[in-house]
């Protein structure tokens, strides 16, 4: 039985800055995110973790290499088409939640749905309520996000990332701003969603406890993935 691969990249290169400050941020990174798997990217600060996340999330264009999402190559896509792809196939979770502060929890979850435009206002409200209920915030739909606790805000961000039922969820330090208990709750929630809904999750983390719980752990150094460990296979292999 072959596992579906939702996101694939090969030999991705990315330079940041110009002239003397030019940095080779990604050096031939290759990666595959299969359905139902959770991947962690670990490494020291400045090793290129976030850059990789933004490139995979179509927020930044690679200088070289090849990428495809859900079987479609994205190299030739125009800026608007990339935005469309981001809206349909990708869900983002950020360290600082990045919610619209004046919007309620429900309205925040509806933001990606509004852009997609496939649901009526009533359907969007229902779906947002259902997603928030799924992350344990069913009772706080109408609360302004700035009045929610850090853990609750992160759960709203998780619900928002799932709004358009994306194939891939990309998370940048999703537990970095939470205490230990909330970190584990948030991670367990993500893990459950990935397994139940057959999604792929890539998260950047500094937390070794969280990384250990992932199916795959990719270690980065100087823009390269220098090691990939599989928890399931209990084996390790270097891709460089």
């Amino acid at each position, binding site marked *: 039985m072959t596992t579906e691969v939702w996101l694939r990249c090969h030999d991705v290169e990315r330079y940041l800055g110009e002239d003397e400050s030019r940095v080779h941020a990604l050096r031939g990174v290759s990666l595959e995110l299969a359905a139902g798997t959770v991947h962690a990217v670990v490494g020291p600060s400045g090793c290129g973790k976030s850059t990789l996340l933004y490139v995979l999330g179509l927020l*930044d264009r690679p200088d070289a290499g090849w990428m495809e999402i859900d079987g479609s190559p994205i190299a030739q896509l125009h800026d608007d088409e990339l935005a469309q792809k981001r809206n349909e196939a990708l869900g*983002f979770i950020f360290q600082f939640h990045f919610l619209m502060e004046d919007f309620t929890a429900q309205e925040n979850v509806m933001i990606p749905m509004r852009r997609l435009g496939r649901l009526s206002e009533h359907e969007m409200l229902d779906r947002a309520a259902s997603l928030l209920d799924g992350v344990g915030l069913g009772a706080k739909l109408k609360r302004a996000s700035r009045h929610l606790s850090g853990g609750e805000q992160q759960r709203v961000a998780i619900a928002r990332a799932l709004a358009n039922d994306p194939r891939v969820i990309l998370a940048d*330090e999703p537990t970095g701003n939470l205490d230990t208990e909330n970190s584990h709750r948030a991670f367990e929630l993500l893990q459950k969603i990935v397994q139940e809904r057959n999604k792929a999750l890539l998260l950047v983390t500094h937390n070794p406890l969280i990384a250990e719980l992932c199916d795959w752990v990719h270690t980065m150094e100087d823009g390269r993935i220098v090691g990939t460990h599989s928890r399931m296979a209990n084996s390790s292999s270097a891709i460089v």
Partner: protein
Amino acid sequence: MIPPLYIALRFLNHRKRAFVLSLCGVVLGVAFFICIQAQTQGFADHFIESTVGSSGALVVNSRVQFRGNNLPVGPSGSFSSASYSERRFLEGISNAPEIMRVARQFPDVVSSSKVLRGRLSARAGFESATVDLFGIDPQLHFQTTDLGRQLIAGSAADFRSNPNSVIVGSRLAESLQLQTGSVIQLLAPGGEYRRFPIVAIARSGVGAVDGVRIYSHTRVAQTLLNKPYAASMILFKLRDPERAPALGRQFAALFEHEAESWQEREEGNLQLFLTLRMSAAITVALVILLAGFGIFNVLTMSVLSKVKEIAILRSMGYRRGDISSIFLWQGAMIAAAGAALGCTLGALLTWGVSLIPIQVRGLLYADHFLVAWDWRHYLWATLLALIAVFIASYVPARRAAGMQPVATLRGSSA
């Protein structure tokens, strides 16, 4: 509701104070523009109405004789201005009834009145003045001009029934201390003053008319002015006074008489009104421009304060166009609300100004501010506001659309 509009509404709701301040700028700019245009055009319209009403929309004057038999009419029937300079004027109109008969065939002509005009001395008590005598056929003249409606004392019927009576301009009556029933003396050719009873006093509203004009029957004027002809000019009332210059050129060519439209006759005064309107429009447009600067500042600050939200939206799949639309919609809502409220306030201001009493006794006669209710003032004010706000919104909107979400997200990463 489209997503950018929804988000724009939410952003505006979040920055109510800035929104209200921007709105106030547009509202005041639009309202001042409308009110000032209404006033300047109000005075201009009153002047035009008065001058057309008292002296006709089009006047055919002296006969023109062209040297060397150069016909002023071209082969296509057009009037040649080249030969027009080689002309000589012959006083009086000898064939006035014929000209009036032919002119009536023109669909633009409503009616016409022949006038024998001349200057002479007038005396009343110890006061004397030089007056502008209009010898008229009462029936034709009352049809062609607003003289009947301009009477502020006495009656037109008395004038019609008494061939030796006169109507005196209101300011002339004031300066000579005359009223209906009193007598004015007009200098006859023999050097003697003849006495005429005043049966009515007319006020056209134009100072230059009311200060010198006296109306008499044609035969009286012919005697006093000692003219062999019964008309020195023919006044025409037109369906559309704006057509006067074009019709004047046709009449000049057709009748070989000088023809002068009210626009040519009042060119100096019209230029003055136009200059005043332009000056007022420029001044008030600056207010709208300043409101535009205010909106530019508010939206620029909004873009800077929403950098995080812009990055969020971009990461959620919103396009650059969506982001710029959010800020353009904000500008559009300020412009629309500002124009609607500004038009309402402008109408109220205009109405309020029209009630303010003033005494104008110069070029015009008015007892209160004169205003014109013209929908075009509202259209222009709205267009100006829309253009100013669009320009003010465009730059911040472009800036927002050009923002790189990665820069914001990276700046927030651990």
